[in-house]
């Protein structure tokens, strides 16, 4: 089969799975629904491998296959095809998405076991994967927007999955609204592309763009900036990042799937996919890189101080995606993609381990309360450590290879990119600190009550179902994991998912060892061969120097964390007191929510209040009561026309039509 | 005229068309009395009696006597009837029956003559279009008579006709898909290897059942159920107007037989030289007509609700399924 056929099959299975599970709600037992969900994604993964083989079987220059199934819309000679575009980049994304998703489905199979909405959950999950695959396989900007919007909706549905929980529905809405802002950017970009180039197919756009645009012409910069709005919103980059931390309201597998491994990387994919445009607009590309640097620093600093376990990981996600944006912004596309892949492995792993611990804590997420889980949950602890090592770029792990490749490339380009490299090194240092802050705070020490209970009884505390954000009690119908809830140590599904990801997080980096193999770069080469950076990359020696310094920074960071949280645990609190303003700035996430509230939400609200209280009451009401007499008398006159008589209306309509026609006839003379 | 016939594959000179139409009309018109006689004889035999045997040798000119009787009767019109419509209704019925004869093929083009009225590309749709018109003949007859029994019969037949037309259309769809054409001539030609009665046996059975309903024959003769409705829509008719209804009914039996023979039994195909083709076609038609008569002698009448639920709940689903399966098979091969 051709690569395109495989591509369509990749899309087909998750959609079928979603529909099947959705429509067979309450007709098939939950276990079957879960199995169908897993099976659908796994089949998609197998088809992804099929596509990989098919693509690799072609000679390098013909590894781009565009396939159109249907004419989606055809207006005045302009057609949009329901078409996909299969090339190494999309195949790479498909493999990452379906691969990680399969594992997360396996994990959810156990994790959501006693949830009331099991069918709904798997239907949503499959739909999400379908949307994401549509996004990466789309063959033109129109279909990309469709996938983009589907992903936004799926994310909304999954974040608000426990719909009785007000914080969850609010978080869902926030994510949705911000995503829609991004959608608007994307739509405007597509419109602008169509206006300037007259086409929306990727291949045609990228072919025409260099002929039409000169470097940094304002149109192409505008297109890229609008694309970036979409990318930033979906990938939680400043200033559109505020939804990501709130999105942790969704079930933990959702956090792992959407907010770590797949959806948030859509922006990175978009920039990589549209790299011919960005290379024509270096200003926009630089902006993307700078925003990436800014986000990774801001998120890193926040992650050091927040205490909610899932939020720490969420901020670290933002920070890691910042790296990817830097990568695609400065032209290190395959490095960015490589980091995207390794990040998917270790971040999904971290979330899974965190979910396991959170369920053992009866849904409490504050790390201040967690202690001694190293003894209580050894398997989870090992997985958590692997994840943290990979995240902080410990030598030999996947994160080490991928993160430092980006930094190398930035310093290789020199100039202001050198500054970015320094920023990223500081970010790496922060990363090491906060990731080991998690480890050192919750694994060692005397077990806390819940952990002790687990050690003693072999199962988790049956806490009251409560909202982790507000602590309020809730009814169980929202889908509280339930009494029978299993923990990773015992549930096979969770164990399998974590073990495989743990393995990948450890060894995934071996695919891309400078000077040794560089599998990813070679594989993605055909997608980026038209890039102006295709032949410029650091030498092997430079790369190894960078890797060395990365290793050093990571070890120093881990040591610092050890110093702060194990050796002298008093330091953090003293620092906190000493630097009170800084700490509160960080704890409050740099007041981004407040700034946005102040700049946008409050003015709008105030305007609304003003309209309601002042304008409405005095101006409108005054006007109305003043004019109501006039209107009433006028209304009386018009009322006779509103006879309710059908034929009367028909006569009026005919009168209008006759009049209009007469007007046109007279005008045409 | 050129515009009208632009897409027909084979058109002769106008005079040939006229001659042909008269010829077909004469043949069928002379077959109808024979069928009438055969029916009465056969029914008699099947019911352990002789049937007509007084007029002519073995009652052979009984139909002529009947026609003579009907012609000589007074054309009576009830007071409550609506004049114009009452008179035009039987004519409409016989018109729609006769006009359908045009598309029945009795043979391929032979010696510059197509042995059929006309070979229209819309083919079988033509048949359905005019059987839609036939409905108005019955309905007007029932309604314009100004009689309860007539009106009830007309309503029944209307509901029955449109219900069974769906199953009928669906059953023929399978054949059309296999042949890849709507034209009856093409469909016959496509049966060179195998008659469609074999692969489309389900469709054939459905078509025959629906055909019984379309022609108001036993066991679906509810519109004229004499025990309940006196004689249905034709209660108030007498003389040759009644004769027209009668003729139209038998002509429709012949037409349904003809369509069935064309669509399923290979039409004019048969052993022997090509001049035998019309004979073969006629033989197949008469064979199926005999089947109609046989069923009349055998089966009791349905109850009305049974008739409706049989049509909607059994025939239409089966016919739809048949279409689906055929479609899949046609695409697959």
């Amino acid at each position, binding site marked *: 089969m051709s690569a395109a056929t495989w591509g369509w099959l990749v899309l087909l299975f998750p959609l079928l799975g979603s529909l099947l599970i959705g429509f067979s709600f309450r007709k098939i037992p939950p276990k079957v629904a879960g199995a169908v969900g897993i099976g659908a994604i796994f089949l998609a993964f197998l088809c992804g491998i099929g596509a990989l083989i098919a693509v690799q079987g072609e000679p390098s220059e013909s590894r781009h296959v565009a396939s159109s199934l249907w004419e989606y819309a055809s207006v005045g000679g302009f057609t949009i095809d329901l078409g996909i575009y299969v090339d190494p980049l999309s195949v790479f994304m498909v493999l990452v998405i379906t691969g990680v998703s399969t594992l997360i489905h396996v994990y959810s199979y156990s994790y959501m076991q006693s949830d009331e909405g099991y069918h709904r959950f798997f239907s949503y999950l499959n739909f999400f994967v379908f949307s994401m695959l549509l996004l990466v396989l789309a063959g033109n900007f129109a279909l990309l927007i469709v996938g983009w919007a589907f992903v936004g909706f799926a994310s909304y549905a999954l974040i608000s999955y426990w719909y009785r929980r007000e914080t969850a529905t609010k978080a869902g809405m926030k994510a949705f609204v911000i995503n829609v802002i991004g959608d608007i950017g994307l739509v405007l970009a597509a419109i602008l592309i169509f206006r300037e180039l007259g086409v929306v197919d990727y291949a045609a756009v990228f072919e025409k763009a260099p002929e039409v645009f000169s470097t940094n012409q304002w149109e192409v910069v505008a297109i890229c900036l609008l694309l970036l709005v979409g990318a930033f919103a979906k990938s939680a980059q400043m200033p559109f990042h505020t939804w990501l931390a709130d999105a942790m309201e969704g079930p933990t597998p959702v956090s792992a799937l959407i907010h770590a491994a797949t959806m948030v990387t859509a922006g990175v994919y978009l920039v990589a996919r549209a790299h011919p445009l960005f290379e024509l607009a270096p200003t926009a590309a630089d902006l993307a890189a700078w925003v990436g640097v800014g986000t990774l620093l801001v998120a890193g600093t926040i992650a050091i101080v927040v205490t909610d376990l899932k939020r720490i990981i969420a901020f670290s996600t933002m920070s890691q995606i910042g790296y990817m944006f830097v990568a695609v912004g400065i032209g290190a596309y395959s490095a960015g993609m490589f980091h995207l892949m390794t990040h998917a492995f270790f971040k999904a792993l971290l979330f899974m381990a965190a979910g396991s611990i959170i369920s053992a804590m009866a849904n409490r997420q504050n790390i201040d309360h967690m202690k001694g889980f190293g003894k209580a949950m050894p398997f989870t602890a090992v997985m958590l450590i692997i994840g943290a090592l990979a995240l902080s770029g410990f030598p030999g792990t996947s994160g080490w290879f991928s993160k430092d490749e980006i930094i190398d490339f930035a310093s290789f380009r020199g100039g202001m990119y050198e500054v970015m490299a320094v920023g990223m090194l500081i970010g790496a240092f922060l990363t090491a600190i906060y990731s080991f802050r998690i480890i050192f705070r919750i694994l060692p020490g005397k077990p806390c009550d819940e952990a002790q209970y687990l050690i003693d009884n072999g199962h988790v505390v049956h806490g009251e179902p409560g909202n982790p954000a507000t602590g309020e009690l809730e009814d169980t119908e929202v889908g509280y994991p339930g009494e029978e809830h299993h923990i990773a140590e015992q549930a096979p599904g969770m164990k399998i998912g974590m073990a495989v990801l743990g393995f990948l997080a450890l060894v995934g980096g071996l695919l891309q060892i400078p000077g040794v193999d560089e599998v990813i770069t070679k594989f993605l080469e055909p997608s980026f061969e038209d890039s102006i950076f295709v032949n410029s990359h650091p030498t092997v020696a430079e790369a190894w120097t960078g890797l060395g310094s990365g290793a050093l920074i990571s070890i120093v960071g881990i040591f610092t964390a050890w110093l702060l949280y194990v050796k002298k645990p008093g330091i953090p609190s003293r620092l906190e007191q000493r630097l009170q303003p800084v700490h509160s700035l960080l704890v409050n996430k740099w007041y981004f929510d407040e700034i946005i509230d102040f700049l946008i939400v409050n003015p709008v609200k105030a305007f609304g209040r003003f309209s309601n209280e002042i304008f409405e009451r005095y101006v409108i009401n005054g006007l109305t009561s003043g004019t109501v007499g006039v209107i009433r008398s006028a*209304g009386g006159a*018009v*009322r006779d*026309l*509103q*006879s*309710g*008589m*059908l*034929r009367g209306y*028909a*006569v009026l309509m*005919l009168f209008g039509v006759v009049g209009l026609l007469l007007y046109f006839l007279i005008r045409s003379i | 005229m050129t*515009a009208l016939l632009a897409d027909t594959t084979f058109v002769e000179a106008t005079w040939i068309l006229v001659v042909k139409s008269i010829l077909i009309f004469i043949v069928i018109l002379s077959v109808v009395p024979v069928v009438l006689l055969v029916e009465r004889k056969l029914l008699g035999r099947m019911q352990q009696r002789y049937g007509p045997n007084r007029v002519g040798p073995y009652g052979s000119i009984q139909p002529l006597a009947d026609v003579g009787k009907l012609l000589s009767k007074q054309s009576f019109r009830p007071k409550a009837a609506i004049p114009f419509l009452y008179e035009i209704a039987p004519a409409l019925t016989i018109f729609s029956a006769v006009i359908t004869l045009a598309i029945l093929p009795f043979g391929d083009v032979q010696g510059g003559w197509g042995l059929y009225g006309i070979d229209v590309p819309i083919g079988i749709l033509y048949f359905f279009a005019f059987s839609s018109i036939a409905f108005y003949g019955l309905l007007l007859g029932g309604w314009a008579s100004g009689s309860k029994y007539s009106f009830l019969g007309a309503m029944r037949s209307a509901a029955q006709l449109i219900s069974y037309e769906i199953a009928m259309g669906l059953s023929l769809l399978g054949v059309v898909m296999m042949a890849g054409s709507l034209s009856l001539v093409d469909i016959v030609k496509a049966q060179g290897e195998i008659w469609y009665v074999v692969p489309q046996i389900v469709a054939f059975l459905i078509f025959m059942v629906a055909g019984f309903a379309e022609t108001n024959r036993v066991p679906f003769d509810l519109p004229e159920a004499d025990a309940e409705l006196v004689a249905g829509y034709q209660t108030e008719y007498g003389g040759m107007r009644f004769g027209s209804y009668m003729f139209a009914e038998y002509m429709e039996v012949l037409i349904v037989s003809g369509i069935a023979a064309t669509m399923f039994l290979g039409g004019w195909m048969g052993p022997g030289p090509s001049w035998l083709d019309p004979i073969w076609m006629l033989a197949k038609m008469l064979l199926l007509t005999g089947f109609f008569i046989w069923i009349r002698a055998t089966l009791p009448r349905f109850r009305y609700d049974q008739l409706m639920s049989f049509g909607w709940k059994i025939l239409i689903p089966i016919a739809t399924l048949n279409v689906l399966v055929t479609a899949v098979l046609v695409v697959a091969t």
Partner: protein
Amino acid sequence: MDIEWYLVLSALLFTIGFTGVLIRRNPVVILLCLELMLSAGALAMLAFSRMLGDQDGQVMVLIVLVVAACEVVVGLGIVVAMFRRRLPLDVDDMKELKG
């Protein structure tokens, strides 16, 4: 036949239908007049289709046919419902929308 004949015929039929909508009060007849207007539209569509030698117009007529069938089904459903409730079958008596 010249195309404009068909178009003028279509306009005439449309006008007759519209007149019927205006002067008749029985909802069944009004629906019939709507059918007239629709078929006039179909005729125009076919004439244009013939004029341009493009069969898209014919497909459009088929779609109009379906839409007309839907309209009839719903419209007559309303008529039957009115009859069941013993409402007068006169559009002038349906004045719920009176201002």
